[in-house]
């Protein structure tokens, strides 16, 4: 038995891994033909400007920039400068994922970032090979680049900066000091003593931190903006002091922020960033203002200004208006376009054909000056845009073969897991094992092969293909027989009767996976889960009524036996309601009905707390209301929900006291951050880190005591404590609601005779975990991962603890409900193998929904929303799969 399970799990794991590697090509490279940088092309290239200051304000949204000449803005200096013709005020559109590291790579290399860059953001930024970029090209040309600000740059460019002052980036709760340090460094660099730089890069990250902590509408935001304005004023005054018209100042941002203050997604709030360029040489009317350009267009522009070659993988196109005032000769001017166009056309196979037309005009212009320069310019821009779009399309280069085999493996794995109990034939099992082992290993080998070179036909690859085909054809009969047994759904539910509840469980699961077919249901997945859960409540109600009616009928059996027409029985026999009354069931009748009603009201309340998804994300919710200036209400809500949780979980054991202490510490942590009201200001003298660590300590002791006493209740308790610490304070009420739901569900299962049906309970808890996940404000967008959670109770950066905390925070709902399920099943004193089976069942549900989702992804891979909607969901699926696997491992090995 165990070996079949292992085959199933391994097979599906391999499948998931293969799909992942095929869908997210980790090391993608644009195919570049060797570019010839010969002497001819270099000779016209000259440096156009003396000094370039690039000021990057992390997380600044384009609507934070004041309108030119506004009277009461947070940035009076900037708004004053923007009203002059010496400024260019554009909007740079960033590509998702709108996260700092991928955006920095995009701003230096001109490449569109790969989706997986976000995954490595926290972990491996030091080991990144960034590829050719304008900073190291400028370095090669002997320019002196100074840098101050976020340390991410230093890990990306360890050698390139002549002088650098880094600030610790990842301690989000610090939003004052880091920027002060940067400003001090700027003062130093602007002084004449150190004034020998060519490029100065400044990265302020305080604004982003404020956004993460308090959102863009926070009262701290105007202060931060005026601080930025002050910094701009100083730099501007020093930079243009000597009336040096050849200096340029740029204000950029890597990404914006959503209304919740997070970023990572594709919404306009997150992608539209300011792009302001100041130079005394400009003379532009304000009608050009706020034009939307691609953010990576800044790369060839900077290269032209500095007189260096464009990074080979750049996809940006030159912003003519920035460079034009510095170029005297119109013949030279067109060469900048030609260089950019040549560089771009090398990126794609048919680039030269696209460019042909523009080159024709260019040559014509060279020979005969009568042609209008703007016509040639226009032709170049048109061709460059075409090439750039084409190249972006080509970047999403999937390994179809690996993806499809991955999906097949996931399906077969889940089939094997499903049929686990029904395979009794030993020889069949052995052949199964062999076949899957062969197919798995050969596909793994193939995977590693095809990712490098698919087109090349060698003897080895041919052998692999044949091996794969053979093993697949051998395994087909097995797969087929497995499928046949799955379609007899009764066998899956063998241990239980197949009735209304089982049918609805299957329908609910089928609906939840069918909804993945629409991109809007991937965005609004929470609606499906809320709907299904509410319907489950109704199903309980119906089932309970049916049970009550049947029992009352058996009570009245002697009366009703002779009565054919029940409608006439009203007056002659005791009615159903009366039977309840007589048997003392009336009371339970109403109690259960009230309980179901309360559960439904609780869910309705739960979905009001955090709006999530995409369509209704910005509608005001209770969470917003509590967080915005309602500290006392928030404190009351927190205290009362902690009391309710404690009351529900208290059993009088010593570990329960420990849990109480943990809750107190968590409250103190939030109050010492000034998020909650506190009766004693003494509490706030201790640093939040101390409270958080004490809280971790108490929950860890809870966890270990559960290992000692083998009582799963303590695991849930310690999870509750951790949840009250790492979740936002207003989300504590959601943990409270979940505890209530847990207690009431247990009673409901007893009232509706469902407590022995562990498959149903498993699927029901699966639904509940999804409900909690989405009501916590999470969604299928990268932006909902709260980086803030990785810094609770940690000084500085800790990769291991930080990622552990982030993992717990993201998977909190799943972990909580799985351990509640474990607690419930242990309370029913189910045998261990049944518990294991039900956890395996949950894993299998995840596998099936994943496999189905992957199958949908394959034809939808060129869908317009694939990187913004579908791909993040793949990532979330894999995260949840990992935690399901982890939970299964826990249940199996303890």
């Amino acid at each position: 038995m165990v070996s079949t399970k292992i085959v199933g799990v391994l097979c599906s794991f391999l499948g998931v891994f293969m799909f992942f590697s095929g869908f997210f090509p980790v090391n993608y490279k644009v195919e570049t033909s060797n570019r010839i940088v010969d002497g001819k092309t270099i000779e016209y290239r000259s440096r156009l400007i003396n000094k370039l200051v690039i000021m990057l304000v992390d997380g600044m949204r384009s609507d934070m920039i004041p309108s030119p000449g506004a009277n009461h803005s947070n940035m009076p200096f900037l708004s004053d400068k923007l009203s002059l013709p010496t400024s260019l005020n554009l909007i740079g559109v960033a590509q998702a994922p709108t996260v700092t590291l991928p955006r920095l790579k995009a701003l230096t290399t001109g490449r569109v970032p790969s989706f997986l860059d976000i995954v490595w953001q926290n972990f491996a930024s030091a080991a990144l090979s960034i590829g050719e970029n304008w900073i190291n090209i400028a370095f090669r040309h002997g320019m002196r680049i100074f840098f101050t600000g976020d340390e991410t740059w230093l890990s990306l460019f360890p050698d390139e900066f002549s002088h650098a002052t880094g600030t610790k980036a990842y301690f989000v709760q610090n939003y004052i000091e880091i920027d002060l340090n940067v400003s001090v460094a700027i003062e130093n660099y602007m002084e004449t003593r150190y004034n020998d730089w060519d490029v100065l890069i400044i990265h302020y990250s305080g604004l982003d931190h404020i956004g993460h902590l308090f959102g863009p509408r926070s009262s701290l935001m105007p202060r931060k903006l005026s601080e930025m304005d002050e910094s701009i004023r100083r730099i501007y005054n020093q930079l243009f002091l000597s009336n040096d018209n050849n200096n340029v100042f740029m204000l950029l941002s890597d990404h914006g922020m959503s209304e919740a203050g997070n970023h990572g997604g594709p919404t306009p709030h997150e992608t539209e960033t300011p792009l302001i360029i100041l130079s005394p040489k400009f003379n532009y009317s304000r009608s050009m203002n706020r034009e939307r350009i691609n953010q990576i267009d800044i790369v060839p522009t900077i290269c032209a200004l500095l007189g260096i070659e464009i990074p080979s993988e750049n996809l940006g196109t030159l912003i003519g208006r920035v460079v034009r005032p510095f170029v005297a000769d119109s013949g030279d001017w067109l060469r900048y376009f030609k260089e950019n166009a040549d560089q771009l056309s090398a990126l794609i196979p048919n680039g030269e054909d696209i460019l042909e037309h523009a080159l024709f005009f260019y040559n014509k212009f060279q020979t005969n000056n009568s042609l209008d320069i703007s016509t040639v310019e226009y032709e170049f821009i048109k061709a460059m845009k075409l090439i750039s779009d084409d190249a972006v399309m080509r970047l999403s280069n999937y390994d179809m073969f690996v993806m499809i085999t991955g999906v097949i493996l996931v399906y077969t794995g889940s089939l094997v897991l499903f049929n686990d109990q029904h395979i009794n034939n030993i020889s069949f099992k052995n052949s199964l094992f062999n076949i899957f082992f062969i197919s798995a290993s050969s596909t793994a080998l193939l995977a590693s092969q095809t990712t490098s070179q698919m087109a090349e036909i060698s003897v080895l690859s041919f052998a692999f293909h044949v091996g794969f085909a053979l093993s697949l054809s051998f395994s087909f009969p097995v797969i087929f027989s497995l499928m046949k047994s799955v379609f007899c759904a009764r066998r899956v539910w063998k241990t239980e009767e197949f009735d209304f509840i089982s049918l609805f469980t299957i329908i609910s699961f089928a609906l939840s996976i069918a909804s993945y077919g629409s991109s809007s249901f991937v965005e609004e997945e929470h609606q499906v889960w809320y709907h299904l859960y509410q319907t489950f409540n109704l199903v309980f109600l119906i089932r309970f009524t049916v049970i009550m009616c049947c029992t009352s009928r058996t009570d009245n059996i002697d009366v009703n036996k002779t009565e054919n027409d029940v409608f006439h029985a009203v007056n002659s026999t005791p009615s159903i309601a009366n039977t309840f009354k007589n048997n003392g069931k009336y009371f339970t009748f109403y109690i259960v009905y009230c309980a179901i009603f309360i559960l439904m009201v609780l869910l309705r309340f739960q979905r009001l707390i955090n709006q999530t998804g995409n369509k209704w994300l910005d509608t005001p919710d209770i969470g917003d209301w509590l967080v915005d200036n309602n500290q006392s209400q928030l404190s009351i809500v927190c205290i009362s929900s902690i009391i309710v949780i404690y009351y529900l979980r208290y059993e009088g054991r010593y570990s329960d006291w420990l849990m109480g202490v943990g809750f107190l510490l968590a409250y103190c942590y939030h109050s010492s951050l000034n998020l909650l009201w506190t009766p004693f200001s003494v509490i706030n003298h201790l640093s939040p880190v101390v409270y958080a660590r004490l809280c971790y300590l108490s929950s860890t002791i809870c966890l270990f005591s559960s290992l000692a006493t083998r009582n799963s209740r303590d695991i849930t308790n310690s999870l509750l404590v951790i949840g009250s610490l790492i979740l936002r304070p207003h989300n504590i009420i959601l943990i409270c609601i979940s505890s209530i739901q847990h207690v009431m569900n247990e009673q409901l299962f007893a009232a509706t005779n469902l407590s022995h049906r562990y498959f149903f309970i498993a699927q029901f808890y699966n639904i509940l975990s999804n409900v909690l996940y989405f009501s916590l404000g999470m969604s299928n967008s990268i932006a909902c991962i709260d980086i803030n959670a990785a810094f609770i109770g940690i000084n500085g950066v800790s990769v291991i603890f930080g990622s552990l905390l982030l993992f717990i925070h993201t998977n909190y709902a799943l972990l909580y409900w799985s351990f509640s399920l474990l607690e419930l099943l242990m309370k029913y004193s189910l045998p261990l193998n049944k518990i294991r089976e039900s956890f395996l069942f949950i894993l299998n549900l995840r596998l099936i929904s994943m496999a189905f989702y992957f199958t949908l992804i394959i034809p939808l891979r060129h869908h317009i929303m694939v990187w913004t909607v579908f791909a993040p969901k793949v990532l979330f699926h894999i995260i949840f799969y990992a935690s399901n696997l982890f939970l299964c491992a826990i249940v199996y090995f303890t």
Partner: protein
Amino acid sequence: MDYNNWSCDNRIIYYSYFLTGSIISVLAIPYSMGIKNPLINTSIPATFTQSCVMGILEILLFTRLQRETATKSSTNLSQKLKILTYYILTFTICCAGFHILFILFGAPIFSNFIETACLSFHIVSLSLIPSLIITECYIDNCLSLYFDSKIGSRNQIELTVKCVCICGILGCWFGSFAIPLDWDRDWQEWPIPCVIGINVGVAIGYLSSIFIGKFIKSNVRKYV
């Protein structure tokens, strides 16, 4: 369940065809004539009118059927008034119950009150009125009709009533799945998808009851 005493009044089948036809015509005729469907484009008044008309039709038809099976017909006027108030009260309670249910399922709580009320009026008058009339608004009759797995439906009328009620509610349930889609069509406004779902569901309910009844009848004939 045994269907040995299965009785089928032919009128109920004609009524079912008639009511299905009227619902389908409301949904389909405006399209065939090339005009905008008021039910889909201007929702509230049109829905309200439709539910009123359908409700009155159902009341008229089902009371005719009911009158013959009823326990006693009172001629007394005050008795009649009493019964009428009882019916109206039950109807209102059902509407309120469905209104609360819709809110629990995620309808806006305070805003869109009229829309939600209109939807609950619609569902009650389309799919619940037949059951209310047949069961004479007695809770016991309701319970034994819907929840007693040992009795089930014993004649075509009960079957029709049951099918219509269940299919109407299921139609509403499935209709709501169209709301979160990001197509931004005007028919995605609350509560239009649910209204259409109810209409389609009730029509399917009437039709399916006819065929299920035929199936049962043929089986009874075969085995008895």
